[in-house]
């Protein structure tokens, strides 16, 4: 098992430091009685030999991390030096692929996560207070958006918000603008991706919170009621503290899942407006020229990002674990 975890990580790290060999040039001087000309050709044999000898390519160290497609240190420095104020600096940053991907990913994480929690909590509270007989049906339909293949779920929504689809039509009618198209505007595309994110993940939060509500101690609720707490106060001071560990759990899972947002971008065909790091890797690996080094560098950056995201959680788990032992 360790082998399967460690090997690919080592492999990407190594790959990210190499770049394909340049062709070997051969300079031949041909002299005629009158003058000498120099001719440069690609030495096919030598190039092939070099490639066979070192299949990984040339060692370039961290260069790939620093180039325009990734961290783009020099470009950022230039933008910093040349821009007068923050807005200008951010605008020039958003032209660089890495920072463009990061900006979408961060916005996605920090809008979807809280909204999923709020919506999930509301549904759980509402379902908990209706007739017990209907709960099975509600849970069944609620699970559908969650278990559906992410790409397929994204496509289903995408077809509906198409300007010729039903939701697209509805939006056009509501806005009174028959040329309105969600695909054309970056802002609207981000909104629809976020809506998809919420639609996909809310059932998960709902199921977790609903299970938590079943373990709610009834005597505390009654005690609060006798003390004169209103319905809202009971939710605020009894139910929410009881569910707090679950809220933390859902937040953690959501942070991880939203960080790797990828399928909806493919499904919504939104590359032009929104990208994420996973999408960048996919894009490098696919296509006709498979850019392994570039993809590997992005992968390593992503892994570091995940590590940063997970560190506080890991430290907490470690403490809990030590306490239990």
């Amino acid at each position, binding site marked *: *098992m360790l082998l*399967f*975890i460690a090997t*690919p990580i080592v*492999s990407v790290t190594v790959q990210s430091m190499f770049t394909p060999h340049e062709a070997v040039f051969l300079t031949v001087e041909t002299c005629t009685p009158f003058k000498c000309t120099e001719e440069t050709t690609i030495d096919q044999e030598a190039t092939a030999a070099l490639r066979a000898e070192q299949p990984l390519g040339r060692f370039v160290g961290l260069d790939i991390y620093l180039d325009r497609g990734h961290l783009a240190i020099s470009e950022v420095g230039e933008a910093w030096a040349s821009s007068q104020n923050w807005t200008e600096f951010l605008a020039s940053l958003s032209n660089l692929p890495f920072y463009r991907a990061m900006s979408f990913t961060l916005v996605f994480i920090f809008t979807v996560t809280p909204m999923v929690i709020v919506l999930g909590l509301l*549904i759980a509270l*509402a*379902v908990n*207070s*209706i007739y017990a007989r209907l709960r099975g049906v*509600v849970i*069944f*339909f*609620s*699970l*559908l*958006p969650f*278990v*559906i*293949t*992410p*790409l*397929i*779920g994204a*496509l*289903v*929504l995408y*077809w*509906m918000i*198409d300007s*010729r*689809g*039903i939701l697209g039509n509805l939006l056009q009618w509501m806005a009174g603008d028959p040329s309105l198209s969600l695909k054309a505007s970056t802002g609207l595309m981000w909104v629809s991706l976020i809506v998809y994110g919420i*639609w996909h993940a809310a*059932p*998960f939060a709902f199921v977790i919170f609903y299970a*938590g509500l079943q373990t709610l101690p009834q005597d505390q*609720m009654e005690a609060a009621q006798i003390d004169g707490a209103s319905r809202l106060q009971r939710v605020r001071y009894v139910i929410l503290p009881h569910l707090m560990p*679950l809220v933390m*759990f*859902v937040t953690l899972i959501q942070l*991880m899942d939203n960080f*790797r947002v990828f399928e909806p971008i*493919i499904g919504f065909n939104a590359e032009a407006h929104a990208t994420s790091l*996973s999408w960048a*890797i*996919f894009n490098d*690996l*696919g296509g006709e020229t498979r850019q*392994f080094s570039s*993809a590997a560098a*992005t*992968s390593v950056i*992503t*892994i570091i990002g*995940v590590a940063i995201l*997970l560190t506080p959680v*890991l430290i907490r*788990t470690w403490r809990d674990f030590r306490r239990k*032992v």
Partner: protein
Amino acid sequence: MASRAQSLPKGLRIALTSFIVIWLIMAAFPFIWTLWGSFKVELDFFSIADWTNAITGARTEETHGSPFTGAGYHGAWVEEGFLRNVINTFIVCFFVVLTSLTIGTLGGYALSRSGYRYTFWLLIAALIFRAMPPITLVAGYMLPFFQWNVWGILPTTIIVLVAINQPFTLWMLHSFFQNIPKELDESAKVDGCTQFQAFRHVIIPVMWPGVITTGLFSFLLAYNDFAVTAMLLAEENRTMVPQVAAFLGSTYTEGNVMFAVASVVSATVPLFILVMVFQRQIVSGLTAGAVKG
């Protein structure tokens, strides 16, 4: 149940019920709509003239003589050979579930019965793999696979999916086994069983709920995966999900989109049945992780 003092006032009850109804429509309507639309022609499903066409199927009636048509399904299943992708998907899912459950049950049992505390490291591995986008690992697998000439075939993809899935499976089964009391093994051994016989005759009969739940989640992971299968499978070995993406990517001719719609509906049906049959296990699996983690 709820006493009279706890019963809801009428206004609140109506508000809550309508909220749930709105949520249900949000959750279910896209699927119903796509299912309905998959029996139409493209001009109806994406109607420029009038959105009610998508419900009544006016253009479909003009073209095919009835408001419903199986043209999309015919195109996807017969012309494009979607059946091959379906078979590939089920081969991949079957072997992923089988392998990860075999390793998971044996390994999980061993870990839960051994004295050393592996739990923390298992949990860490499960967490890391849960957090890591699978595609970052794909980048690492791809170049070696090309060099060993094993790229594009089903077995390597199955191995990669199992590897990505294994820490999670192991952890989940491990916690299920921990709930089976040790006294059960011990009494079996007192009665003269060897360690393996104790596992075979005493533990296996009581472990099924855990195994089924874990198996469901491995199945969902293998079935829903796009990044790994799209990158590691050659065109003739594709599973369903990358094939749907390919329908959209290839030449955009009229009607081709309907192939994609039809195949999307076809790919949703197994999941629908799965939720219907195993709803209880899915919910218990989700919550088991939450309560312990």
